[in-house]
């Protein structure tokens, strides 16, 4: 119970009927709604606190003690942003009626005691650090000893969002948006300070310690502070220390469980990202012309002003870029054509024209925002300035108002004519491939996608198949039947008819269709066991090297003939834990790296689809995708009856999504900062140029930056991502994302503006890269260490001023970092050792982490667990109303009720969990007559009843949220071992499992390490 969570200060100020008030008593696990009445949570003695302003002292206790619920899930309002919706039944962690949490009802101390206990402990009001995001409760103001004027002035602004339960994002108090908007407009940081400082003027203690002075500096969050003080009026010490309250850290208090001496955290109070990924909006409010966070996200939306400051930020400093992300809200990225002139760029630093460039001298010159060089405006681009200094044509020029634009690139951006989209398929037809049914699914899917392949009518297509020989298909448009050409000399490969193997799809359409129709029957009697994968790869390279394009490899067995032959490895458990362990995750044969480098050079991108039930060495095959901006899809033990649907969707997505061809990407930034390392699937063509033979919206790239100069003198740092590519239509384009971020001088600001999603994405990529050179154990330790260091530094910011014993403090912006760190260490890629995850699956998971976007990664790390049975049973809820199935539960075994039906969705698969005593009705309706049979043999299909249709609707909705992967549903029944274990239980990251620590224990470990400084 010890969250000090600043508790949304607002909470008390709300009327009792406000969503929060109502929400709390409700039990989370029963979606039915307010059952709470039935079981008053012991630790919440006073129901919704009356507005604090009225009875500050009495209400303070519960308010402070309780903040856990709302405070911890900042989410609620966000989710139920529609005020008309009935009280959000979330009540974060309140015990469910009869749910597992009942075990914990013991909320250690009766509230009163607790209050007393806490007061001394916290010593000062400091305790109640402002919950930053929270909506400052204005009514409290008057009580604040220091009653800061600015906060008052800010009041209206705050009140605005207050009324409807606000979305939670603006975690950072001072900054965000609304207030910021109201108080100051532009590159706010600095301008903000004076006001605040004035506010804090008489802050004598501050002067004392260096840290304080920081705070003084960074206080942009003052409006928040006062409410905090209010929370604890009882314990508020003299004014001086109240000041300290102006901090926006969150804290968890360790407590001792009765009977034991070990301190521990109350699992109910731990923060959980049940909202999924939340893109921080504060930067967008400060710099409205920035590109959407969908495209570029920085680990912290602030650049440290000096190297010494940067070295105190122990978490990664960098960006995660998804250059082709689907634009938000169905907007289109504006396309700008400067023809016949060239693209307007800065002469010196080559920055593309962007909204932050300023025009001067009556519009004849523009000043580059990145290098401050004064450039001449090309005559074709000239426009007069109006009275305010803006170009008169600014509204017709999207590149001057939008952070994301596309320029049509003139001929000087081409080294050859834009290539047509090229798809070449390399399909394994050995006996295992035939038996699994893969060939048929692939052939049918390709055939169904022929109309939707991008780039009609220029699209080119080609096929080759291989077992112990390589088969090419002449599909010249003049033929009626494809002609098969067999090459059996694997040592000296040659390409028969080099011109007719890759054909124009629209011209040879009928031949291609005939081929795809006959493909599965052609090899159905094949009994060849061998796989000449290496030679086939080489020949595919020869066919494609003229044009480049996309190579899709369907591989069903370990390459066994010719170059690139691989051998079984990874079945030796003794290697694990030794220095040679990482070798298993590296390509065995340098052939694959060489091929990958050649592929990248000739603009070929490789996607690997692997299907084998045995070891196929994803580590080696994956290398092909890694350096060519490709992707690895792994379907262990593929059976078309079971996995066919997944393959169909993912292959379709791969073939039909908008793809950028022969692309290169560069991220520019102003002098003083440099991007040093890049992480993802690509190959570096020069120190900062990423070669991406084909790239699409599902790929993200991460990069870390470092400061080159000891001190940055500018106030704002600009980043510009430029992706030069050939669109499928044959036009060469440059997609430019521009982003401005403030340069800050205080560490606290960096923490406040941190973006957990981006940090986790970078941390994961670093951890995966670490597994390629070190042991898994080392990679996990490194993750933990990074988090500990970050939190320790943060603690040091405040430790001087506050007594923090027994408390773990962390910034509001990073409240989920610890959990994601734990989830990362327990993810398929990093978990355990030899026995825990098969080597291939581990490598495939690693490849996924290296490519996915932030949103998808966070979902993968902390999947959603949703209870379904109530939605399925309740006929009164309209089937379209899927709100009740949006409520995610904490990922712990205690969330699972054996009477319920749950769905676990990590974005790659769905696991449907049937409780042991679930009503037979549900099982029967969902599974049909054989509901009692073993679930592994049952597949989920739509039955002819309402319940089944509802389930299908839920699944469809989950699948539609992000279509990059298809979530195949697995059914599992409670207690069905070992399936339940590895499908679900191992993924409940908050539970202790095997050698892995649970969430509470992990927090304890971190907290201990943080304190041993």
């Amino acid at each position, binding site marked *: 119970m010890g969250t000090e969570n600043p508790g949304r200060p607002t909470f008390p100020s709300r009327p009792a009927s406000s969503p929060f008030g109502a929400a709390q008593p409700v039990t989370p696990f029963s979606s039915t709604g307010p059952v709470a009445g039935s079981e008053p949570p012991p630790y919440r003695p006073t129901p919704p606190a009356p507005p604090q302003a009225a009875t500050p002292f009495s209400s303070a206790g519960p308010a402070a003690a309780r903040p856990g619920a709302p405070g911890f899930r900042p989410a609620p309002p966000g989710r139920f942003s529609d005020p008309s919706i009935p009280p959000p039944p979330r009540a974060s962690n309140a015990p469910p009626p009869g749910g597992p949490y009942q075990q914990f009802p013991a909320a250690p101390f009766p509230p009163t005691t607790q209050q007393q206990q806490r007061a001394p402990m916290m010593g000062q009001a400091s305790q109640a650090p402002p919950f930053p995001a929270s909506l400052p409760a204005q009514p409290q103001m008057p009580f604040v000893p220091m009653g800061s004027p600015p906060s008052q002035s800010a009041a209206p602004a705050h009140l605005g969002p207050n009324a409807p339960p606000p979305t939670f994002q603006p975690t950072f108090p001072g900054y965000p948006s609304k207030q910021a908007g109201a108080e100051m407009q532009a590159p706010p940081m600095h301008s903000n300070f004076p006001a605040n400082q004035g506010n804090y003027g008489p802050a004598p203690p501050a002067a004392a310690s260096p840290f304080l002075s920081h705070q003084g500096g960074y206080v942009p969050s003052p409006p928040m502070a006062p409410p905090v003080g209010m929370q604890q009026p009882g314990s508020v010490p003299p004014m001086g220390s109240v000041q300290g309250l102006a901090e926006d850290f969150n804290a968890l208090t360790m407590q001792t469980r009765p009977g034991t001496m070990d301190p521990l955290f109350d699992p109910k109070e731990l923060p959980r990202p049940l909202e999924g990924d939340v893109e921080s909006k504060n930067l967008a409010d400060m710099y409205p012309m920035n590109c959407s966070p969908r495209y570029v996200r920085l680990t912290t939306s602030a650049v440290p002003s000096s190297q010494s400051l940067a070295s105190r930020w122990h978490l990664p400093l960098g960006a995660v870029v998804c250059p082709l992300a689907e634009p938000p809200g169905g907007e289109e990225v504006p396309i700008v054509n400067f023809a016949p002139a060239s693209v307007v760029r800065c002469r010196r630093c080559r920055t593309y024209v962007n909204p932050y460039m300023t025009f001067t001298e009556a519009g004849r010159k523009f000043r580059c925002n990145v290098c401050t060089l004064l450039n001449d405006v090309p005559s074709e681009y000239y426009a007069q300035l109006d009275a305010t200094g803006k170009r008169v044509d600014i509204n017709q020029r999207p590149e001057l108002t939008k952070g994301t634009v596309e320029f049509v690139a003139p001929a000087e951006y081409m080294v050859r004519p834009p290539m047509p989209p090229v798809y070449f398929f390399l399909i394994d037809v050995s006996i295992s491939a035939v038996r699994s049914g893969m060939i048929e699914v692939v052939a049918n899917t390709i055939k169904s996608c022929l109309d939707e392949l991008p780039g009609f009518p220029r699209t080119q297509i080609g096929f080759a198949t291989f077992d112990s020989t390589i088969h090419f298909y002449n599909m010249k448009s003049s033929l009626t039947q494809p002609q098969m050409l067999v090459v059996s000399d694997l040592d000296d490969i040659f390409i028969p008819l080099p011109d007719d193997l890759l054909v124009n799809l629209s011209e040879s359409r009928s031949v291609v269709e005939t081929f795809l129709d006959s493909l599965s029957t052609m090899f159905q009697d094949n009994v060849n066991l061998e796989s000449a994968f290496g030679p086939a790869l080489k020949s595919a390279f020869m066919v494609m090297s003229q044009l480049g394009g996309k190579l899709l490899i369907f591989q069903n067995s370990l390459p066994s003939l010719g170059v690139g032959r691989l051998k079984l490895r990874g079945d030796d458990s003794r290697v694990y834990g030794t220095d040679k362990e990482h070798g298993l995750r590296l390509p065995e044969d*340098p052939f694959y*790296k*060489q091929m*990958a*480098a050649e592929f*990248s*050079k000739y603009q070929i991108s490789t996607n690997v689809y692997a299907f084998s039930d045995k070891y196929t060495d994803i580590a080696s095959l994956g*290398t092909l995708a890694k*350096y060519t901006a490709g992707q690895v899809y792994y379907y262990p033990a593929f059976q078309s009856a079971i996995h066919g649907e997944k393959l169909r969707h993912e292959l379709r997505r791969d073939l039909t999504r908008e793809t950028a061809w022969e692309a290169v990407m560069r991220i520019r930034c102003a002098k003083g900062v440099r991007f040093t*390392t890049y992480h993802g699937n690509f*190959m*570096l*063509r*020069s*120190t900062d140029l990423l070669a991406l033979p084909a790239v699409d919206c599902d790929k993200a790239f991460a990069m870390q930056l470092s400061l080159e100069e000891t001190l940055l003198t500018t106030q704002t740092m600009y980043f510009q991502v430029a992706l030069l590519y050939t669109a499928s239509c044959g036009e060469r384009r440059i997609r430019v994302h521009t982003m401005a971020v403030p340069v800050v001088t205080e560490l606290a600001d960096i923490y406040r503006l941190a973006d957990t999603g981006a940090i986790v994405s970078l941390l994961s990529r670093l951890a995966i890269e670490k597994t390629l050179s070190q042991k898994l154990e080392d990679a996990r330790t490194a993750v933990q260490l990074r988090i500990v260091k970050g939190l320790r530094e943060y603690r040091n910011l405040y430790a001087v001023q506050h007594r923090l014993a027994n408390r773990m403090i962390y910034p509001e912006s990073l409240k989920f970092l610890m959990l994601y760190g734990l989830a990362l260490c327990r993810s398929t890629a990093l978990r355990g050792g030899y026995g825990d995850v098969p080597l291939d699956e581990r490598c495939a998971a690693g490849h996924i982490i290296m490519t996915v976007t932030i949103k998808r990664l966070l979902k993968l790390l902390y999947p959603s667990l949703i209870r379904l049975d109530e939605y399925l049973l309740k006929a009164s809820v309209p089937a379209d109303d899927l709100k009740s199935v949006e409520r995610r539960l904490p990922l712990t075994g205690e969330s699972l009720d054996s009477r319920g039906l749950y769905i676990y969705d990590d974005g790659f698969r769905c696991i449907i969990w049937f409780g042991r005593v679930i009503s037979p009705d549900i099982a029967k309706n969902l599974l049909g007559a054989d509901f009692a049979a073993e679930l592994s043999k049952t597949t989920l299909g739509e039955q002819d009843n309402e319940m089944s249709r509802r389930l299908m609707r839920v699944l469809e909705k989950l699948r539609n949220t992000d279509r990059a992967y298809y979530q195949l549903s697995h059914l599992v029944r409670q207690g069905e071992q070992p399936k339940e274990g590895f499908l679900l239980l191992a993924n409940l990251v908050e539970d202790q499992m095997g050698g892995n620590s649970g969430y509470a224990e992990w927090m304890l470990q971190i907290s201990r390490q943080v304190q041993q400084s």
Partner: protein
Amino acid sequence: MADLFVWLISFFLLIALLVLITFQLMCLADLEFDYINPYDSSTRINRVVMPEFITQAVLCFFYLVTRHWIMALFCVPYLLFNIRLYRRRMHLIDVTEIFNLLSWEKKQRLIKLFYLVFILFLSVFWYRQFERLNCLSILWISL
């Protein structure tokens, strides 16, 4: 006279090594400044890596055979380092990872360069003088 030839041969071997290392460093520097692409850079470097290793091994062996123990001793760490690289298959530049390893590759070659210069220095001055002293003492004894 034989001594002079021994010295000359070792001197030219050292110069050859220096040239090879400098060439590799130049390729890396060019790559860093984007004058050549990673493919060309790595093929150029990889072409001279084995010659470098072999020359160095020959030099070490040569010192041993000619019983220049101290010089041989100085060459051993270098040789062992090369053998270690070779056995780990890390001696060739990996074009796919070249930019991530750039600083390491440069550092490694710079250290090699300084080490060679140091050995060259020894062989030119100190060692020559030592030998001359030796010769003188032999002369003196024989007299």
